[in-house]
């Protein structure tokens, strides 16, 4: 088996220098996906013949001097909740097991137009609901650093594909931390852009006011490159930001002098996080300070209410979004039904897994007559308070630094019987979704042989500033260069 692929910038340089062809690169990626990727459960489907053909076309373009973008000819993986015309998109769910999309997602169109080669569709928690990538009809995804642990979720397959060196960059989606937390658990960079920055057209909906598409890579510069390709206005998504997406890559050279990094005192309370996480994050903050940043304590007083507000809002939106799966228009249909009602009830019950059912039922409950004000409206009011907390904090700092997750990657199966405990692990990530902020997780060290992630958050639209701080940190540290041990 060939070794791990290099970073996006290394591979691009090699393609530019003529030392490598896209065909060879894509072949190596597919081989690694079929071997190491399969043992880690990272992929749901490989685009075996299509990717090879597209790579040959990319090589022909390059020979003709018509390189389309910095992603031209580069193998990339996408989460299996992004549709492509004529191909199956499952969302890791039985209910969509045979769904062939009649159209392509905006992000997929942009990747195609940039010449990126999608080698495969990655495994995930069903409908992006989960923090461990275990809730999949295709089986659990495993952490490449320790295969007895989860890679995090819900975009676990996309994080693993990068961490295991199968692709240099990949695409995921983040509703409450589903890019940042698996990035932290797998030791890669994971960016959730500002809400509305990347078109949700063709992203299978989970919670529409929170869902955002983003990227994984090995460095801040690599995810900035992907962001420049996938960001931008799309009239087919009514929540797509009308502003043009500013260039990010050129802003990465800025140093940290004058930058103020806020530490929310409510996140660093005693017993809030595992001691290994605290140690690694504190060390990362000290490195930022040594590199010229000013560290300032800030306050986000409503932080302790974020997880509760998130699970009320996300499940309410999910129960509404997933009402479309009826066994009639598309998706799984139960056989031998007695009437239409029976068709709905049985098709949905057979098609959805336990975690999805749990969230649909919770969401239906909080939206039901008599409970709406106490739960859903209350959560939306708390969402306002959380937004105000961030507005105030960002008036005195440029970025906020926190742990990405309060603990090290947990063991497979460990949380299966305790959904509430699983939800509480999202404590540091959900606020960014509720407030619409961009956030990134970057590797900041190892503990117990597995990675720890530092989360940076910025005000809406400030991806360039956010990735600038991340890039400056990565010029000072080598944590993002650590690779999981290769099997002998």
């Amino acid at each position, binding site marked *: 088996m060939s070794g791990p692929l290099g970073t996006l910038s290394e591979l691009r340089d090699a393609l530019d220098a003529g030392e490598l062809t896209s065909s060879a690169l894509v072949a190596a990626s597919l081989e690694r996906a079929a071997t190491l990727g399969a043992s880690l459960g990272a992929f749901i489907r490989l685009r075996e013949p299509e990717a090879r053909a597209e790579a040959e076309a990319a090589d022909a373009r390059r020979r003709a001097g018509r390189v389309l973008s910095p992603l031209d000819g580069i193998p990339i993986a996408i989460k299996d909740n992004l549709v492509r015309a004529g191909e199956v998109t499952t969302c890791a769910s039985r209910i969509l097991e*045979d*769904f062939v999309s*009649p*159209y392509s997602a905006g992000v997929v169109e942009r990747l195609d137009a940039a010449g990126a080669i999608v080698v495969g569709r990655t495994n995930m928690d069903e409908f992006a609901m989960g923090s461990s990538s275990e809730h999949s009809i295709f089986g659990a995804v495993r952490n490449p650093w320790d295969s007895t642990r989860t890679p995090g979720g819900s975009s676990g397959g996309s994080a693993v594909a990068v961490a295991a060196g199968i692709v240099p960059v990949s695409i995921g989606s983040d509703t409450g931390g589903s890019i940042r937390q698996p990035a932290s658990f797998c030791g890669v960079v994971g960016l959730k852009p500002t*809400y*509305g920055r990347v078109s949700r057209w063709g992203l299978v909906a989970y919670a529409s*006011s929170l869902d955002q598409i983003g990227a994984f890579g090995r460095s801040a510069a690599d995810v900035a490159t992907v962001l420049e390709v996938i960001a931008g206005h799309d009239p087919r998504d*009514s*929540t797509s*930001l*009308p502003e043009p997406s500013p260039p990010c890559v050129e802003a990465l050279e800025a140093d940290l002098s004058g930058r103020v990094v806020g530490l929310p005192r409510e996140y660093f309370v005693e017993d809030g996080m595992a001691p290994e996480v605290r140690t690694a994050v504190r060390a990362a903050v000290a490195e930022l300070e040594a590199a010229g940043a000013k560290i300032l304590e800030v306050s986000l007083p*409503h932080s302790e209410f974020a*997880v*509760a*507000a998130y*699970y*009320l809002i996300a499940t309410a939106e999910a129960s509404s979004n997933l*009402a479309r799966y*009826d*066994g*009639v*228009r*598309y998706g*799984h*249909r139960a056989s031998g*039904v007695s*009437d*239409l009602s*029976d*068709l*709905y*009830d*049985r098709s*949905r*019950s057979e098609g*959805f897994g336990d975690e999805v*059912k*749990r969230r649909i*039922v*919770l969401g239906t*409950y909080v939206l*039901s007559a008599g409970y709406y004000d*106490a739960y859903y*409206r*209350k*959560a*939306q*009011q*708390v*969402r*306002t*308070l959380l*937004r105000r907390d961030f507005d105030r904090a960002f008036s005195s700092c440029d970025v906020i630094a926190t742990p990405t997750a309060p603990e090290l990657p947990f063991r497979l199966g460990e949380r299966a019987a305790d*959904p*509430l405990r699983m939800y*509480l692990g999202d404590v540091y990530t959900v606020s960014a979704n*509720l*407030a*619409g902020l961009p956030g990134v997780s970057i590797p900041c060290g190892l503990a117990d042989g597995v990675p720890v992630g530092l989360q940076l958050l910025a005000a*809406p639209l400030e991806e360039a500033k956010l990735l600038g701080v991340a890039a400056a940190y990565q010029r000072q540290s080598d944590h993002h260069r650590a690779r999981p041990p290769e099997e002998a």
Partner: protein
Amino acid sequence: MAGITREEVERVVALARLSLSPEETDRMSRELGAILGYVETLERLDTTDVPPTSHVLPLATPLRDDVPSEPIDPGLAVSNAPRHEGSAFVVPKVIEGEEEG
């Protein structure tokens, strides 16, 4: 509002167009009880006069120009339906009392 009764779970499951076995209903009652117990922490917050946020962006619903465009082909639109005839979805009989024609 602590917890949730089994009867309430059954009512909500029916609203959500799901059907659960008795064991699944028991487990759902327990798990939802724990989650609802946790979200009760929100009751400690006084949110009188706080406007709700349904959406983070100050966006108005955009209107597109009224330009004709090609609709999706009806055959393609129903191609994922588990059962379809021509461009129509096939469902079990809904109205009682008439012979199937």
